[in-house]
């Protein structure tokens, strides 16, 4: 018996997880369509930046909700017992999370999110939705989605997983708290970092008026008349470094989760 990985056991795990959480899966699918309606009612803004940022935000929020509900057994003691004694390897159990949260969730979310937005835009005779997605920060649709939405999503998912396996109590709360602190910290850091890199004419934009996003390669400068100017850093290293840091961190968190699961005690 291969004790590290078996496709047969992995298939059984996938089947079991779906059967035990079918209702949550279906609720999540419905949740994926709601942002389009919500946006139409509450946020009738139509521009590329808004659409991409909305996609990233909803991916992170709905993805976070999906993961915490779909993998409840990682957080509760009685459920952890059944997870640990289930005849499958720790690697299979970690890959199961990766499979559902990334391989299954991300494509389904992307298709349903963009599809429902397209339909809503069509119904209300707005612009062709897909024209809003043609370019983002100098990138075409797919690389932009992968870089600005999926990569941070995988990074945050890896943090949630590590905390779920590592901690014995309030794992989800602590994980989200940690992510919030991380985002605030990175944003503050980016503000000062960008400040040192960006020039607007001969003057520096006011730090307090910058809205800085993660990963840091661009920033907005908002003047007193609330007019925003897109600032793109000229440092070619920032983006590759951001991507490498996020990718390696996510990988390390997944590997750490694997080892933590192996030695998790109840």
């Amino acid at each position, binding site marked *: 018996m291969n004790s590290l990985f078996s496709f047969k056991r992995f298939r059984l795990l996938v089947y079991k997880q779906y059967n*035990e959480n079918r209702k949550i899966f279906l609720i999540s699918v419905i949740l994926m369509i709601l942002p389009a309606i919500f946006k139409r009612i509450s946020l009738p803004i139509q521009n590329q930046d808004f659409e991409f940022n909305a996609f990233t935000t909803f991916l992170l929020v709905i993805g976070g909700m999906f993961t915490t509900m779909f993998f409840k057994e990682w957080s509760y003691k009685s459920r952890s017992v059944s997870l640990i*004694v289930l005849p*499958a390897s*720790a690697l299979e159990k970690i890959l199961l999370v990766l499979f559902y949260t990334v391989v299954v969730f991300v494509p389904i979310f992307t298709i349903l999110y963009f599809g429902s937005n397209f339909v809503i835009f069509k119904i209300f005779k707005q612009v062709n939705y897909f024209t809003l997605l043609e370019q983002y920060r100098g990138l075409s649709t797919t690389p932009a989605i992968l870089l600005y939405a999926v990569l941070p999503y995988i990074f945050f998912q890896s943090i949630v997983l590590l905390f779920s396996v590592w901690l014995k109590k309030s794992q989800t709360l602590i994980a989200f708290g940690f992510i919030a602190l991380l985002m605030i910290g990175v944003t503050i850091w980016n503000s000062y970092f960008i400040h040192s890199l960006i020039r607007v004419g001969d003057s520096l934009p006011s730090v307090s008026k910058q809205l800085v996003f993660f990963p840091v390669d661009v920033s907005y400068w908002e003047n007193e008349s609330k007019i925003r100017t897109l600032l793109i850093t000229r440092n070619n290293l920032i983006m590759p470094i951001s991507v490498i840091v996020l990718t390696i961190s996510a990988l390390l968190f997944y590997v750490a989760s694997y080892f933590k699961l192996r*030695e998790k005690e109840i």
Partner: protein
Amino acid sequence: MNLTLLPGGIYGLLGKNGAGKTTLLKLICGLSFPDEGSIKVGEYIPSKRDVGFLSDIFFVGEEIYIAERTPKEMEKYLAPFYPSFDSALFRELIKKLEVDYNGKFSQLSYGQKKKAMIAFAISCKTKYLFMDEPTNGLDIPSKALFRSIIASTYDENRITVISTHQVRDLQSLIDNVIILNDSQIQFNVSMDQVSEKLIFGHGSLIPEGEEPLYVGGGELGKSYILRNSNNSHSQVDLETLFNGFISDPELFTQILNG
């Protein structure tokens, strides 16, 4: 702590609350790791959680988790993990325990869920079956059914360990008794060995000239334990034995280990 369990045995793990019964079961199942010493279950070291080991054991914890589906669905998605799972037996046990095979777990009581889990655990036909306080949450008829099911599904190749502080629930069921006190195993003896060394009696009259090792009051009157000095035979009263042990652990440990 030294403990060896042999195939075919149904072991009753007894002890007061906090004696370490659950911890011991968790150590054996690989849910906790020993700080020192070693544990071996068959060819496996539990803390390594080898898949082969995990498919050889089934652990029914005091708190159980069952997804909100039906026993039928549970069988479909969970049974394939256990190569020796007996589907016919599962249906038979579910029926005996009066759990609806097609009923949603969300509509069942905790006791019903626990019965379904016990039926599933037995049907997995694993080499090792560990149950922690399995009768907690069961009503009196279900406790009797539990005893009858464990006895009727006896397997000479299986080791069954049932931990409980409700000693009476294991009466006439176990063939070995392990008593745990202050995280130490005081004794691990067969019921025959207990019967060879001790006599159990009930009623207000203690035989003349006998010095009882323990006298206790019970719902059915006085119960007592005597030394078995003339090879008599009496049915072991687990509750009296346990109470006797609690009253004088050293004396009973000495007699039963002697």
